């Protein structure tokens, strides 16, 4: 792979968006209107409406069971796989209705990548892990194409230097933090517009968490990122927009600074000061 690495040009790192960027001035990428979710008879989400800005990090925070992960999974229709789950309301990505029956869920998930709570690399080689998405979607036209995608994705995920000599070794042999970055690289390899992250650091130690957070901050220059997190500090560190969920309701959303320094709602205030949750 060393030979290969020489041929691949370094991907340009675009200008970093300033941390203080105002999400309200950004174009809206994903829009949710009055989204409800039922698991059988139990309602898990009550009329959530939110706009997700393009190329920024939006954080969903809230206590366990508040519906933030449920809502995240509505966006790439992962809830489809749960038996008895019913989604109401409307979610659009670039004006395309996600729940339009004519929309192909396979195509949707190629546009909206996802990173899960527990790192879940395939029990295959590191190379295969990343090449899988481009392969099934027919993105790479040749073996060289595929090699380039793998290397570029690994570089973007900041993992290339650590694994370049063992691309054929199993992905499950990496450390937890490396596995999670591998999963991020795997998601990037398909070329998504939006990346959903469901508590991506909850299974990681603080150092690995810091690396992932840095990575998220770099990625937002090119991708729309939605992250669900338990950690308010993490939300404050990585996101530009924050939405607070409680008991299935979206209580408050806005610029991250405003939510953490000057929340409008009492429940938000209680949560961020540690009184509920």
């Amino acid at each position, binding site marked *: 792979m060393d030979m290969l690495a020489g041929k691949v040009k370094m991907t340009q790192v675009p200008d970093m968006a300033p941390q203080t960027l105002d999400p309200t001035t950004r174009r809206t990428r994903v829009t949710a209107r009055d989204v409800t979710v039922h698991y059988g008879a139990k309602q898990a989400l009550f009329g959530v409406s939110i706009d997700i800005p393009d190329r920024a990090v939006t954080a969903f925070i809230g206590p366990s069971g508040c519906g933030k992960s449920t809502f995240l999974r509505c966006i790439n229709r992962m809830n489809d796989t749960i038996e008895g789950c019913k989604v109401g309301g409307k979610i659009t990505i670039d004006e395309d209705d996600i729940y339009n029956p004519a929309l192909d869920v396979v195509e949707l998930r190629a546009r909206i990548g996802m990173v899960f709570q527990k790192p879940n690399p395939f029990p295959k080689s590191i190379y295969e892990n990343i090449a899988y998405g481009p392969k099934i979607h027919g993105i790479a036209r040749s073996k060289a194409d595929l090699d380039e995608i793998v290397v570029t994705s690994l570089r973007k995920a900041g993992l290339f230097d650590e694994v370049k000599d063992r691309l054929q070794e199993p992905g499950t042999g990496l450390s937890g933090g490396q596995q999670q970055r591998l*999963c991020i690289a795997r998601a990037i390899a398909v070329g998504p517009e939006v990346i959903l992250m469901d508590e991506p650091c909850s299974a990681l130690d603080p150092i690995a968490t810091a690396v992932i957070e840095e990575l998220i901050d770099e990625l937002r220059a090119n991708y729309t990122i939605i992250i669900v997190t338990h950690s308010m500090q993490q939300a404050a560190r990585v996101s530009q927009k924050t939405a607070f969920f409680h008991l299935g309701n979206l209580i408050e959303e806005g610029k991250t600074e405003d939510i953490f320094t000057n929340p409008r709602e009492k429940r938000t205030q209680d949560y961020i000061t540690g009184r509920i949750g």
Partner: protein
Amino acid sequence: MTTTASLAPNTSDDASIRRQRIRAGLTRRHVNETMFRGLGLAAILAALVFVCIFFYTILGKGIPSFQQPVLHLAVTFDPDVITSPTPPARAVGQSDADYRAATLAWQREVAGLNWNRIVEAAVRAKLPATVDMDSRQVLSLVETSERHRLRERFVADPSLIGKTVQLELLASANVDNWLKGNIDRSLSDAQQQLSAPARATADAFLADGTITWRFALSIFSNVDSRAAPAAAGLAGAFMGSLYMMLVVILLAVPIGVASAVYLEEFATKSRLTDIIEVNINNLAAVPSIVFGLLGAAVFINYFHLPLSAPLVGGMVLTLMTLPTIIIATRAALKGVPPSLRQAALGLGASKMQMVFHHVLPVTFPSILTATIIGVAQALGETAPLLLIGMNAFVASVPGSPLDQAAALPVQIYLWQGNENRNFFEARTSAAIIVLLGLMILLNAVAIFLRTRLERRA
């Protein structure tokens, strides 16, 4: 509430009471544990003892029958006996059909000759002059199959006429019994299978080297035989079982795995799938003989497939094996962590890609193990085969799954019931050893493939 109060950790008195109570129960708890361990150990020992007894009997009886006595005789292809020595030569202008007919007529003629006289002469040549035995007694030393072997030898090579050849002829099953001590030597003449001079001759032959022990290749190379027990073998039953295994693997694995995958991954949960699931679980508990009845009713009576055919046997065993494979495959699929499915789906894999690229490869070792255990079970199954005619006496090696054939477990059953008990008890054990060997081989393959695949995954 007094208990709670007394357990309050505040005062030293309460602490000592608490410790006392714990200590009082401690002995009882340890005794219980020791007893449980003891019982467990006893259970394992009992199981081991039974296994040892089983192997001791089977191996003790079976292994000697892999050796059998042969007579080393100088056989003369006597022209006085072989009165039609030359095969028909092909006349000029004779048609193929005519030539074949002439050859067959000659072979029939050769078969009609009294080959026993040649065998008898060969044995008598070794007998001391003092021994007085009639033809029957002399011939009782040699297995009846041997005269056919002499005939076949001659047909293959007519130039043997008048020549004397040193040959090994199988001793008869009765000689085998006598020499191995499988029959009580103190029994009276009336209860013995061999006459007194024949018994004495057998002993003398063994002493002077005319009879030696040889590995009983016939067990593997010959088909079953009633007329010549010493030449009876498992070749037909082995091939029959092999064909059945092929049919089972070719039918049960794809159908079983496909059903399991569909039910587990694609079917929407409904009353119907629930009913199917319950029924599959029930099928696994249906006695195997019922599947035999079903096979007889459906495959033979309705579809008019041939009796005693490995194809039908394999189909019946497939029915029996399917539930095992389906249940095991479903269990394996259920055991795949949801995170793997989510990883695939989250990347935009279709459901089928998820199943075939990720879920099945992970479960493959378990499916393989289940399949081989199912096939091994089917290999040892006897009852359903009896109902579709596989207990027929078949003295040929099947050339295809549609030919009549025996099967290993059925052969064991038939031999166990053979009237020459002394001889076939040992042969039965030998057949059981072969069957067990085959099963151990199958399981070894399963374990080998499993560890290999798991290491690769």
